[in-house]
């Protein structure tokens, strides 16, 4: 059972979110049409774990890049232009490009892991949340808890309240 409350104004929405958060509801989602730094602050989102993926990707990419260039040069030794087989300066360029390539790909992976997207199941959602409404979703609340959540949302000035059955 999920309760969704829609708000027309940002400050009402943020007030409701804060109230819910402080009342001990831990499974709340805050849907907004634009990124809101305040909403992220309410949920206590600080530094994202994505940055770890980026760093790991960049390091792996750098190693892989140099290994690719140097390793393949050794697999089949073909001297050219009187240069060394493992020629450092050009291989650093390959390393540079691969660092970025892997950094980007790992950041993408990190995004998917951290944001839990793509979503494999339907989750409580209102299309208006992507246009001009702010939506608070409280999930996993039942009985008295649900009633309490609903009261908080209504009190904060929600326009509408929806109840959605979650498919388990």
């Amino acid at each position, binding site marked *: 059972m999920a309760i969704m409350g829609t708000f027309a104004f940002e400050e009402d929405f943020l007030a409701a979110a804060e109230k819910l958060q402080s009342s001990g509801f831990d499974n709340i989602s805050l849907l907004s049409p634009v990124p809101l730094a305040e909403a992220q602050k309410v949920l206590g989102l600080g530094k994202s774990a994505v940055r770890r993926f980026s760093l790991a990707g960049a390091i792996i990419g750098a190693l892989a890049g140099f290994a690719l260039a140097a390793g393949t040069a050794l697999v*089949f030794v*073909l*001297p050219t*232009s*009187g*240069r*060394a*087989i493992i020629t450092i300066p050009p291989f650093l360029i390959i390393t540079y490009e691969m660092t970025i390539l892997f950094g980007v790909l790992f950041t993408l992976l990190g995004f998917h892991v951290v944001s839990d997207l793509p979503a494999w199941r339907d989750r409580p959602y209102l299309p208006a949340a992507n246009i001009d409404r702010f939506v608070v979703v409280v999930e996993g609340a039942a009985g008295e808890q649900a009633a309490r959540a609903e009261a908080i949302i209504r009190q904060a000035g929600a326009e509408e309240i929806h109840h959605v059955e979650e498919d388990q």
Partner: protein
Amino acid sequence: MKWGNDLSTFVEKFRQYLKPGYYDEFDYHWTMTIDLDRCTGCEACVVACQAENNLPIVGEKRYAQNREIKWIRIERYWEGEYPDVKMGFIPMLCQHCDAAPCEIACPVFATYHNQDGLNTQIYNRCIGTRTCAVYCPYEVRYFNWFTYTWDEPLEQQLNPDVTVREKGVMEKCTFCIQRIRLAKDNAKDDDRRRVRDGEVVPACVQSCPTEAMAFGDSNDPEAKVSKMMKNPRGYTVLEELNTTPSIVYLKKAHAES
């Protein structure tokens, strides 16, 4: 200890791979000398090369477009003003540079330096970026702009030891690598370790009526080329580019006036 040996071999190999130049010494260092004093510009070498290496006849129109394929060409230079005019020749072919600007350019290793000091061109590997030709300061690389055919019965005279190239492939002088190969095989069959001096003769050298050209292994101090190279008239073309060519020209001597 086995592992220790492996490691030291590995370290040694790795050092070698990091060394610029890579080769300490070529097995053979095929070198050519061209004595410009003897060159008459008769172009016999050009024709011999054409026959030996299956070079296509591109036709008048394509010749005018500067798309001919001549692994060796005679460049003519004029000095002075008419009527007091002098003409000089210089046969220009792939210089087989030890530090070749072309080799570094190929993304697919279609050209590389082999253990004989030859700048090789592997037609099957070429994808036709033409970068090598742009990088070559001697402009001795030729591109197959089209697939050329030989009219009957000319296809009968194609050399079976040399590939016929298709369109989109770069080609250039190989120092008649098929003859080098043959000489090496013969040397092996005769239980000799080395090819004898004068055993390999590229088509151009063979056909030169004035014997202006000499070809051989400059690693061998007794070889004819090694002696010719010591000639004070010797120079390499575009020396300032540091390509270290394998062709040494002997300057034309002028009487001091």
